[in-house]
């Protein structure tokens, strides 16, 4: 009987319901019936052996408690696919924000330390992802209880509103990449706004004179790109309009980068540091000047070519859309 009582206490500990005393009382009664049934058969066992056999058949006390008091899942089954999508997108967003934050620290830093850069990214990511996970799960737990999430998602659904080209799905990761790239470009373009004067004076490379207008041109392009990326998050597949806008967006980037590449030098060595560098690192200074004259042009042309390639690819996709 000691074994049965031990088992019942283990079950009771797992039960949270107010009528757990009654459940235990009933379980005790059922166990004794089952044990008695074994002992009335031909090969009767002693009480403890029969008890062990019956209790083993019932299963672990935690399983038994859960069968009497099934717990509602944190996220309803029907909401799981949507939950996973939201979690994945949130994780990507948090990671990209951590990346942007780390890159801004990198730009301000006196030296480049890859290990410290990685630590900053992952530290920032881990700092934020736990809170994001908890908030999203709580939202799904409370709203998913009465099927509210499902009702909300499909509240306006009509067959006529289905996308014309469901096969051509927009990629969330591409939208995230475009968004982050534009945000980072804005960060770089507007360094004078967020970086301290002291840090700016220590920057080795600065924008050449008469090139200030590029800040504004790139700002407009980045704003268009950010708007389009955010819009794409609300769409599951490409439409002709969104695709045309995307092609134009990339084509404009390509044109701007090609023009910037032709207007060398776009960047120069910080005049305040030229003398010091000439004395301390003359070879590095020579190399840097050479890179700023030619290397930057080639880099900008490569980026422009990439943007042009993207524009051409999506232009071709546009011909396939209904």
């Amino acid at each position: 009987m000691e074994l049965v009582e031990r088992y019942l206490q283990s079950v009771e500990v797992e039960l949270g319901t107010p009528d757990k005393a009654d459940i235990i009382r009933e379980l005790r009664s059922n166990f004794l019936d089952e044990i008695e049934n074994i002992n009335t058969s031909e090969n009767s066992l002693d009480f403890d052996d029969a008890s062990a056999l019956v209790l083993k058949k019932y299963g672990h006390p935690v399983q038994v408690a859960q069968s009497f008091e099934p717990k509602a899942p944190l996220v309803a089954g029907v909401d799981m696919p949507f939950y996973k999508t939201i979690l994945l997108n949130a994780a990507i967003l948090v990671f990209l924000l951590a990346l942007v934050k780390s890159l801004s620290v990198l730009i301000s830093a006196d030296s480049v330390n890859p290990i410290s850069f990685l630590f900053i990214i992952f530290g920032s990511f881990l700092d934020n992802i736990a809170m994001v996970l908890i908030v999203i799960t709580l939202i799904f737990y409370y709203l998913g209880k009465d099927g509210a999430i499902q009702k909300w998602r499909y509240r306006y659904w009509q067959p006529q509103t289905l996308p014309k080209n469901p096969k051509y799905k927009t990629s969330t990761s591409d939208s995230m990449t475009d968004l982050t790239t534009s945000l980072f470009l804005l960060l770089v373009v507007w360094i004078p706004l967020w970086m301290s004067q002291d840090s700016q004076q220590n920057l080795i490379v600065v924008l050449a004179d008469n090139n200030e207008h590029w800040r504004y041109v790139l700002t407009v392009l980045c704003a268009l790109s950010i708007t389009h990326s955010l819009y794409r998050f609300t769409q599951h597949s490409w439409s002709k309009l969104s695709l045309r806008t995307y092609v134009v967006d990339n084509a404009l980037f390509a044109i701007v980068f090609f023009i910037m590449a032709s207007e060398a030098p776009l960047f120069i060595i910080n005049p305040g540091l030229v003398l010091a560098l000439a004395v301390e690192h003359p070879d590095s200074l020579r190399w840097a000047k050479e890179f700023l004259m030619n290397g930057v042009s080639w880099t900008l042309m490569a980026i422009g070519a990439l943007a042009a390639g993207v524009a051409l690819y999506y232009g071709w996709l546009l011909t396939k859309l209904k």
Partner: protein
Amino acid sequence: MADERASKLRLELRRGILVLSALASCKTPQYGYSMRKHLAEAGLEIDEGTLYPLIRRLANQGLLDSEWQQADGRERRYYRLSASGQEVLSQLTTDWAELNASLTQILAQSEIE
């Protein structure tokens, strides 16, 4: 593999008739073990871990009335159909008869084909 699949599907099929079986058993007063034995004798083996929580749930839903009784020096909780349980059993019995008739027809047609 096929046996495993069939076994899972068989379990699903049996799960569908558990409530009806339990309610029908409680036309006469039953306690947990006696109900399991009654169903097993009729050819419906149900393990204890499934049946006992089920009859408690039916009692909590008001479909079964229950009371503790002393007999043979032991106490047992006896269940029997409540008034609403009687109504539900009657509806489910009708539904079952209709489903059974439909399924018999479908199976007969598939045999012909």
